[in-house]
């Protein structure tokens, strides 16, 4: 059992962890940068320590300062939240070296899953399907043709050194393959000084579906079902839901079982999310594991009635998971909308400022996770997430109705937010029917 935890994060997730600790009788230490000096959630921690200037490299990402703060406040453990140092294996290692419990996975599991090639190998060992492709660089056209036909078109050529779409080509048949290989290599060579490419099956209009899992030190692992996070804009999730509206019961089970196999194979401990792409035929392919709690974790909390942060704290304190898989029941439908201080009418550019009027939605079926309130100043230093609205209802139609009602109630002035964008998505025929994929938002709006 932990007795005193430092939270190496800020904003809503810092408050989320403080709340869970408070309810469990665990003391908390909040750290903050000078930009967050007046944050009202700091008073809810037992102690708070200023660790640096607004620049996160000098504060929330500064390992020595956070470790020092942990030392002078005499904590057992550090909760990293999400983002910042949450998936930094070096930080986890230093915590361990200093005798401080890192509330997350063991360093080895974090390193293993942080390496895409190793994670892919692990998935194969655990018999979890991965996106079919070359297991490394493709040297010549002949190999490319053979592999493309083995995998089945469409395929995608990607630069090993790639990023931002450069050195990428989607190919639909043998005829296009040669030209695509050449041009991808040339583009990669020009952009990255390195022309090597590899090949993967191109998943057409996939859904992003992820499984929430939790494992303890004794090797027990349970899942909290899946979340569908297909509503994304530039790979930023906007709306998440559970269950995935298109999965049939048997598929859901297979997906969850695959996630558990993978997490056990990795000798994982604590919370993780196993991410998959789901194609139109209902096949799923492992992408990666997020070795931390995620922004959208409340969605799974609402449908299972389980507090995931409390489980993180219990497991980090050495307790086993006392839940059997059959104890975790999925009930109803949960939706989450992320409210960012961004201007949807101006290409989602950040919209910092002081909130002069704030009226949050409330009532039946609504959960609000936020650190802001009237009078709060949104600084331009950090990410623009200011609130999460989570709705829980019996049916998806009711959840959508409640979320629309909540968004329409929500008053945040004068900053611009993603509320109108969320409302537009929730009102769209294809979203209501559940017929979306990761390209839906950019294709439609």
């Amino acid at each position: 059992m932990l007795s005193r935890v430092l939270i190496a994060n800020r904003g809503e997730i810092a408050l989320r962890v403080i709340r869970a600790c408070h309810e469990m009788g665990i003391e908390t230490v909040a750290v903050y940068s000078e930009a967050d000096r007046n944050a009202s959630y700091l008073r809810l921690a037992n102690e708070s320590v200023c660790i640096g200037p607004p620049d996160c490299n000098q504060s929330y990402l500064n390992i020595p300062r956070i470790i020092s703060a942990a030392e002078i406040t005499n904590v057992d453990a550090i909760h990293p939240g999400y983002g910042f140092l949450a998936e930094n294996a070096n930080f986890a290692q230093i915590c361990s070296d200093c005798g401080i419990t890192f509330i997350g996975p063991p360093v080895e599991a974090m390193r293993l899953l942080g390496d895409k090639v190793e994670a892919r190998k692990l998935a194969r060992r655990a018999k979890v399907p991965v996106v079919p492709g070359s297991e490394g660089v493709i040297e010549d056209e002949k190999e490319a043709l053979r592999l493309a036909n083995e995998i089945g078109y469409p395929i995608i050529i990607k630069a090993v050194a790639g990023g931002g779409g450069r050195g990428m080509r989607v190919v639909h048949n043998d005829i296009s393959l040669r030209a695509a290989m050449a041009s991808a290599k040339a583009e990669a060579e020009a952009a990255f000084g390195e022309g090597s490419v590899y090949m993967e099956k191109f998943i057409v209009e996939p859904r992003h579906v992820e499984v929430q899992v939790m494992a303890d030190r004794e090797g027990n692992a349970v899942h909290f079902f899946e979340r569908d996070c297909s509503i994304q804009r530039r790979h930023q999730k906007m709306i998440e839901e559970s269950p995935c509206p298109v999965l049939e019961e048997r598929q859901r089970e297979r997906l969850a079982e695959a996630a558990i196999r993978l997490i056990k194979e990795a000798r994982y401990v604590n919370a993780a999310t196993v991410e998959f792409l789901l194609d139109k035929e209902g096949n799923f392919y492992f992408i990666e594991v997020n070795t931390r709690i995620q922004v959208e974790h409340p969605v799974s909390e609402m449908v299972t009635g389980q507090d995931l942060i409390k489980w993180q704290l219990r497991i980090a304190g050495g307790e086993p998971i006392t839940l059997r898989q059959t104890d975790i029941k999925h009930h109803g439908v949960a939706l989450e909308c992320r409210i960012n201080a961004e201007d949807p009418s101006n290409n989602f550019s950040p919209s910092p400022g002081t909130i002069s009027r704030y009226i949050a939605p409330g009532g039946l079926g609504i959960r609000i996770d936020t650190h802001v309130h009237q009078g709060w100043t949104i600084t331009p230093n950090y990410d623009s997430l200011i609130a999460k609205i989570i709705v829980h209802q019996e049916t998806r139609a009711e959840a959508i109705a409640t979320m629309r009602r909540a968004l329409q109630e929500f008053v945040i002035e004068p900053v611009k937010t993603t509320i109108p964008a969320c409302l537009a998505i929730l009102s769209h025929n294809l979203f209501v029917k559940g017929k979306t994929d990761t390209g839906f938002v950019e294709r439609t709006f």
Partner: protein
Amino acid sequence: MAEKDADVQKIRDLIKIMKENDLVKIDIQHGDDRISLRRAEPPHPGPVGNPIIASLPGLMAPVGAPDAAPAATAVRDDLLEIKSPIVGTFYEAPSPDSDPYVEIGAHVDAQTVVCIVEAMKVMNEIKAEISGTIVEKRVANGQAVEYGQVLFKVKPE
């Protein structure tokens, strides 16, 4: 928590007593527990003024709390401050047996080492980075300090 709340209440009561009686200093010690309070003098000539500072063993001094730091500069804005550039434990001397790096009245320049702040077992020598005369020491030996916490007040040349 309950104990800490009791301390806060006690400090509030003491501050009230100080204000009512125009005291500028109270020190109370019971075994290992110590409460030390100082109040700013009224703004007429007199000793160096301070905002209310409460320090309790095992507790972060609430100097970095929202209101304290701005108040510090407001009282005597002709003084400069040497602040902690890191988070750690403040030591006034290189070893328990040594003399402090600086005492009240000492002259410092930019390169003068004024103290050590220990962070992650590393002893970091803190330099004054300004020139002048030390007129006040704001933290006790062995006390935890946070980023930006005022360590010394310096009267400039």
